[in-house]
């Protein structure tokens, strides 16, 4: 039988039994839709995290006090505190290194802000003028910290959007004097609202010159030094130079940890990529189940159509023709199921993106391709057995069933 005829015959046979056809198409489509939606979720999570990390700043190198045991990123190091001091002068020494574009020291702590009788607790970040561009923060009003001697900061502050809202409401904030801890500071800038992200939420942040923050918290250590490399390619060499410089300054001891955003990103990327893969694997099980269902449906079809198979043999069909016809039918059921499932999955992912706009729930290409081919392959593989059974039927016996 010609291919086009085989396909048409299979199609007519499938549409001739709408109930079982619908059932197997549905099962297959649920399997494929599950793969598409679940991987969209998994990969969406990965993209979300990667996106958040990228928003920390570009080509970022971060120096932490304390030596990390391994060369790679260890999340514990990001949290534990200082065994050995990192100073403003350490940060200053890095400014002249080749390959660095910007350097910003960072000291953090909590304090209280007080204006017009209103009092609230705030997070205070002590840094320099370059902190805001390094972190890709944006200024809504006024300006950032002034360029000045790092060790003699002027009494100014840049505040987050929420603080401005709560302390000043509809009034002008720029130029006002506020009390932060025991200092009186003049507001020079307001940050644009960023909302909750993976990085620091700047809405409730007060940025002051680093020397002021250290005086406020009565310490001369830094929480971090942030360095922006000239380019992505410059990151490894700059990282080396930073290590070397700090080692020299610390009497030959490697007592700091230098992490690059790349490394952090790669770790999360790998982690969440593996998660997506696992989720895809789980979804693939439903595809196998769908394949078994297609097989059962086809076995029922062979039983239902035994008389027809006998007739086809009497009319001169070879066993190959009959095998192909039933195989084509199974393939058609799974192909249509896969297609419907793909559309359902894309629709589901679209709905997810509508409801959670920050979450990029796009199914990755590999998952879509793997899902579709698995659906087709299981349909075919599980279609082989019923097709062979049909082809092997004894024509006389089969004809008697008519």
């Amino acid at each position: 039988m010609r291919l086009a005829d085989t396909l048409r015959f299979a199609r007519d046979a499938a549409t001739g039994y709408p109930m079982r056809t619908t059932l197997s198409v549905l099962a297959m489509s649920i399997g494929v839709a599950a793969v598409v939606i679940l991987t969209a979720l998994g990969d969406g999570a990965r993209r979300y995290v990667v996106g958040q990390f990228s928003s920390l700043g570009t080509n970022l190198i971060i120096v932490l006090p304390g030596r990390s045991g391994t060369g790679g990123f260890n999340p514990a190091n990001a949290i534990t505190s200082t065994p050995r001091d990192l100073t403003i002068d350490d940060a200053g020494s890095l400014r002249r290194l080749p390959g660095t574009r910007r350097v910003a020291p960072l000291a953090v702590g909590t304090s209280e802000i007080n204006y017009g009788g209103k009092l609230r607790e705030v997070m205070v970040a002590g840094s320099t003028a370059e902190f805001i561009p390094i972190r890709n923060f944006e200024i809504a009003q006024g300006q950032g910290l002034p360029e000045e001697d790092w060790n003699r900061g002027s009494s100014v502050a840049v505040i987050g959007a929420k603080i401005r809202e709560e302390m000043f409401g509809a009034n002008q904030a720029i130029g006002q004097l506020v009390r932060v801890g025991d200092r009186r500071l003049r507001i020079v800038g307001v940050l644009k609202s960023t909302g909750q992200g993976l990085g620091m939420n700047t809405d409730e942040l007060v940025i002051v010159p680093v020397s002021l923050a250290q005086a406020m918290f009565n310490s001369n250590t830094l929480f971090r030094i942030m360095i922006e490399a000239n380019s992505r390619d410059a990151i490894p060499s700059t990282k080396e130079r930073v290590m070397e410089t700090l080692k020299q300054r610390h009497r030959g001891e490697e007592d700091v940890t230098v992490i690059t955003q790349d490394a952090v990103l790669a770790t999360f990327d790998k982690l969440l990529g593996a998660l997506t893969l696992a989720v895809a694997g789980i979804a693939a099980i439903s595809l196998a189940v769908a394949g078994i269902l297609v097989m059962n449906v086809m076995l029922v079809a062979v039983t239902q159509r035994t008389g027809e198979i006998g007739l086809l043999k009497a009319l001169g069909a070879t066993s190959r023709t009959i095998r192909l016809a039933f195989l084509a039918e199974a393939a058609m059921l799974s192909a249509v199921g896969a297609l419907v499932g793909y559309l359902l999955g894309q629709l589901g992912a679209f709905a997810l993106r509508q409801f959670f706009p920050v979450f990029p729930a796009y199914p990755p290409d590999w998952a879509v391709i793997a899902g579709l081919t698995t659906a087709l392959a299981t349909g075919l593989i599980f279609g082989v057995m019923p097709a062979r059974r049909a082809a092997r039927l004894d024509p006389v016996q089969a004809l008697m069933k008519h």
Partner: protein
Amino acid sequence: MALIELSGIERRFLLGDTTVHALAGLNLQIDAGEYVAVMGPSGSGKSTLLNLLGLLDRPNEGTYKLEGRDVTTLSPDEQATVRSTRIGFVFQSFHLVPRLTAAENIALPMTLAGIPAVERNKRVAQALKDFGLENRADHKPDQLSGGQRQRVAIARATIMQPALILADEPTGNLDRHTGEEVVNLLEALNAKGVTLIVVTHDQGMGARARRQLVMEDGRLKADSRAASISNLAEISG
């Protein structure tokens, strides 16, 4: 040369502990262009004989030569090809595919044989005209009368221009008048040279054939041609 040559055919079925001899020691020759009626009581082996002649079944013993070729030893697919090109079946219960139209049912043997659609359509159009089914082409079997269904079945049996048409009680499910029409159609085919073998219960219809075979318990009880030959021998002797 004989179209069909059966010698020493045995066909046994195991029913529990007992062996049923559906065909036993059967020797038979049928020439091309003959019109043969197979008669006999129910269970005498008529259908088994027809299935065997149509290569749907194999004998346990004996040889079957079709057009001089031993077809008992052919592989299933070779037998399928012989069925496709040389043999047409007409069944008592029509055996049409319910989801296909009359035209598609008629075209089915050609479709299975891989004949291109253009050629198929041409031949089906001619067949629809020949069998008076022109305005039934797009009807499904359940929209056709019994007589029309059997005409579709006969059109299908002849569409590959076979040398041999095997009909197992083709009028069994039809009333007298439509049965008559169907027999006329089959006889018209035979008149054009197709060998026709019809299994029938109907004495009158059997008598219309030029040769009658009577089966009993899997054996050939009477063969009108053999009888006339022996009559001839008696007369001359």
